[in-house]
């Protein structure tokens, strides 16, 4: 599951830059996602992680550079077109459809990403996605009645209902406790085992270290590191820019005495 065994990336981001007025949110960022891979995208707040995901999913508006999905250029296409091609995402700030039930929320993806699907198939697909994230018993309530952890998982189920090949996760673990984080980590592993390729934006380093094959680090919109987890967290640039000395010492100590 690395660059050597699968040379063609499923997602190729090339020289992407995004400007908001005078602010350069993303500057000349390139990275690859290979089939079956989980790539962690980390960096301080405001580093441009969400903006980069917006570029991939078509929500960012004008930008420079290109994004290719499975060899086909998708930059400049509408978000719904990109979604139907097979790129799904979650939002850092969860965006449930408040006047639809949990099951109906999930049905939207199943309904619109395969327009000719029968409604019975749509329902089965949505059910399946709900069961997967452990919300099967909450199908008929409104999302406003869910806890934060459940809302994060609803966000995941909604993304899965589009039958994606690439999944972009924007801080699905933020605000969750240990047990809930472990649950999501297990879930992400399961989703990868189903054959998806995943980009994980996250601040929870323990989770990142546990699931990622590779880590890309952003700072002030620029990519400052890209490599295997251990190499990246020991990179002095990354330590000074984001992780801090304390993390580096703790990580080194863990490696010495596992």
């Amino acid at each position, binding site marked *: 599951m690395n660059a050597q065994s699968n040379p063609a990336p499923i997602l190729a981001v090339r020289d992407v830059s995004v400007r908001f007025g005078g602010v350069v949110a993303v500057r000349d960022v390139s990275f690859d996602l290979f089939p079956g891979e989980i790539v962690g995208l980390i960096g301080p707040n405001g580093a441009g992680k969400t903006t980069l995901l917006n570029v991939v999913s078509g929500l960012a508006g004008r930008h420079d550079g290109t994004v290719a999905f499975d060899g086909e250029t998708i930059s400049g296409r509408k978000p719904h077109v990109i979604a139907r091609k097979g790129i799904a995402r979650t939002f850092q700030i969860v965006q449930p459809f408040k006047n639809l039930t949990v099951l109906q929320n999930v049905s939207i993806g199943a309904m619109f990403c395969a327009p000719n699907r029968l409604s019975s198939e749509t329902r089965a697909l949505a059910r399946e996605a709900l069961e997967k994230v452990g919300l099967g018993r909450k199908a008929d309530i409104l999302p406003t009645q869910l806890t934060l952890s459940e809302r994060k998982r609803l966000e995941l189920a909604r993304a899965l209902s*589009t039958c994606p090949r690439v999944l972009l996760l924007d801080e699905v673990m933020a605000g969750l406790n240990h047990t809930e984080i472990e649950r999501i980590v297990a879930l992400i592993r399961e989703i990868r085992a189903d054959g998806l390729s995943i980009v994980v934006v996250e601040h929870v380093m323990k989770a990142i270290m546990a699931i990622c094959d590779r880590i890309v680090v952003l700072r002030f919109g620029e990519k400052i590191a890209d490599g295997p987890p251990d190499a990246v967290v020991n990179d002095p640039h990354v330590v000074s820019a984001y992780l801090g000395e304390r993390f580096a010492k703790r990580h080194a100590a863990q490696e010495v005495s596992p």
Partner: protein
Amino acid sequence: MTGSRKSLVLALAALAVLAILPFVIGNYWLRVLTSVFMVGVVAQGLNVIVGFAGYHAFGNSAFFGVGAYVVAVTLNAGWPLPLAFVAAGLASAVVAGVFGWPLLRLRGHYFAIASVALNMAFIEVILNLGGVTGGAQGLPLPISPMAPDLLYRIIYFLMLGALVAATAVVWVLSQSRLGYALRALKDSESGAEVMGVDTVRAKITAWAISAAMTGTVGGIWAYWITFIEVSSAFDIGISMRAYIMMLLGGIGTVFGPVAGAFLFQIVATMIWAEFTHIHNLLLGVFLVAVVMLVPNGVLPLLSRAGWRAASARLGGASTRLSHRLFAREER
């Protein structure tokens, strides 16, 4: 399931009564009911774009006017009546499509203002157009050879039919993919888009449906009153009344706007009759009370949970009020 079957039975019973009524009641009540149906359709039209999609089309009266003028002009040109009504609905839908294409790309409140501007623009265009539209002089329609008593009953049934048709369309919409797309984008357009929904197309389609409903009854209205001018055809007050009806009955529901239309008319008739000098004030107070106490409309009150929520809100409001009064006394 049982809830929707119950409301279907209720609706059919009400329909049977409404079908017999014109042969029993006098022309005053006939006129009142005909206009309830008419504004009820405008309310259903608003329901499609406001209730489902969450786009506040304050200026939907523009389509009422377009429909009215299309019927007036085509009837004057000798078109058969049914064709004139169809033309009114179609022309309104086309106008919504053409203007929706740029306007509905804008998210949020720009649209509300732009729709009002559209209404004003039509007034200006027709005033300056003259010719077949009559310009500032207004436009008379061909007088029907039918006896008035018969004609008014036919118009009653036309408006009732339009209301039934509009409600059926909303019911179909509530079950359809488009309906789901609209309810999804109402809460989060980005969320809907990344799940595969073409939001711009869904919004334009919704507004076109909304416009077709509004334009058709605008056309029937023109045939009814036989003389139209811009101030009455493009009267934004029609949108406003329809808005109150929709809020009163229950926004985004199938039967809400219909229930709201009747309820509003009952209240308005009472207020009009008893307090002619302050009716706008009372109507305003009424509207504020509706929005505060039954923000989801009266229809959900028919279910026990809806009733409990509303009484809780009422209880909360009265507790807050008494606290406030009490605090003032202490000071």
